[in-house]
């Protein structure tokens, strides 16, 4: 979006610049179309199918969108049109989500590196971790209730509990898969343990860790909802609950679509940052 505006802004400064601007715009448009045609096609099919079926439980996307607008984007312009309900639903949810993900990332990477580097630690902890990550969070509610009580801590804990695994596991994989010669090189030049980890192991494992972080971001969103579904409190999870129990399928769909959208945006930001940080790794294929 901003790219398009930027190109348009440059236009007309000079004829040469204008040509470049036009070419750039054409490329931007082509790129944009290349990215969204499938989504648009699927939406159109869905719209047509839903209209043909006319089932209350499977409303067409346009109806879902208008419900969503009513629910969350009917507020004043000064608040980016966010309604009161939107602030209630998104604010705490997203805070929990990001806090949980950040903690999961830190814990997952630290533990992943430690476990990936040490065979003893790996063998000591592997069964515990495998056991731990297969435990369904709902069965731990009594435990969470006692330790964290209902509320923010419990929700964040649930998110951390679920989102840490992909980071941890991928980091362990990444660390164990580091090209041995990188490590030899680092050792040969007398890098200390810390430097070796920070300057060689982490960057070498970065692509895999990033894959884990990305999966974890999706998980964090999912667990945010689960935490809200099973614990008290508002948020998008509670909205879904209300919509389901109140038999308001369109609102349910709106909530689901909203989750998709939030996940999409988070992922977009993540990819931008990732490209910034570790993109040059693989520009190699031409």
């Amino acid at each position, binding site marked *: 979006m901003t790219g398009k505006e930027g190109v348009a802004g440059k236009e007309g400064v000079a004829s040469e610049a204008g040509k470049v601007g036009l070419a750039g715009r054409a490329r931007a448009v082509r790129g944009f179309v290349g990215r969204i045609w499938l989504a648009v096609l699927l939406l159109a099919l869905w719209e047509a199918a839903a209209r043909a079926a006319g089932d209350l439980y499977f409303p067409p996307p346009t109806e879902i969108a208008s419900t969503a607008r009513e629910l969350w984007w009917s507020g004043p312009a000064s608040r980016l049109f966010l309604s009161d309900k939107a602030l209630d639903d998104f604010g705490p949810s997203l805070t929990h989500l990001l806090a949980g993900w950040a903690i999961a990332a830190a814990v997952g990477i630290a533990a992943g590196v430690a476990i990936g580097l040490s065979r003893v630690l790996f063998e000591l902890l592997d069964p515990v971790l495998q056991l731990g990550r297969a435990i369904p969070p709902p069965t731990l509610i009594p435990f969470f209730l006692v330790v964290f009580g209902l509320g923010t801590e419990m929700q964040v804990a649930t998110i951390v509990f679920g989102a840490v695994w992909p980071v941890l596991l991928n980091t362990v994989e990444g660390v164990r898969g580091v090209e041995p*010669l*990188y490590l030899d*090189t680092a*050792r040969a*030049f*007398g890098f200390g343990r810390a430097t070796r980890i920070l*300057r*060689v192991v982490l960057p*070498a494992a*970065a692509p895999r860790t990033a894959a884990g972080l990305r999966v974890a971001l999706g998980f964090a969103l999912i667990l945010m909802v689960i935490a809200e579904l099973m614990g008290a409190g508002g948020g998008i999870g509670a909205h879904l609950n209300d919509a389901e129990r109140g038999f308001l399928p369109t609102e349910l769909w709106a909530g689901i679509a909203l989750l998709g959208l939030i996940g999409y945006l988070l992922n977009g930001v993540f990819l931008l940052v990732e490209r910034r940080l570790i993109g040059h790794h693989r520009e190699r294929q031409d």
Partner: protein
Amino acid sequence: MLEIKGLGHRYADGHRALTGIDLGVERGELVCLVGPSGCGKSTLLRCVAGLLRPTEGTVTLDGNTVDRVPDGLAVVFQDYTRSLFPWLTVRDNVALVLRRRGLGRRERRAAAEEALAAVGLADAVRKYPWQLSGGMQQRAAIARALAYRPSLLLMDEPFGSVDAQTREDLEDLLLTVRGGEGGMTILLVTHDIDESVYVGDRVVVLTGAPGTVHTELRVDLPAPRDQIATREHPAFVALRAEVGRAVRRP
């Protein structure tokens, strides 16, 4: 300075790569290792570097047994492409190892650029390793090792991927650098017999399966070596022929 005694190595899969190697290297000496492909030269270097724990014998450096990587060591690996970090530019690859030298960020960069210029990579400092040709990558690895100013330098076929001219330049660069203060001890693996005689103070010929020392030859050639004069020196020709025979005779 470096003392190798009864060294042998058997890999985890049971393959016996080296056996009964005895070798001493004095401070400031440049010893060339030659020998057939697969005879254990790289394995020997790894043992000396403390990267591989030998299954027999010992390596001692200044009287201390090498059981981990010793201080002041630099290595140019045979598989140089994999020893450059793809996430760093060429300059940062060099600058990174200089952290251990206690230099500031700027000084590190300057030193890195200087070393890269010395191997003819002044224009490539900001590129990533995978944007370089094979020979350029190899030179980057050499620059990294030289910039580090190690007291012990291990080089595993460091000039294998560059053209004849560059090779000679690099040989001379190596000779210049080792002449500097501190006195660098160098172990250099090469397949080029002329090169081994030209740069070496001593040439050690290994034979394979499992690797053992076959011959040691002292190179007594006039001190400031010169690509043309030295190579025309009768002693050079004689030595070169001798090494050649040693390598060829199994």
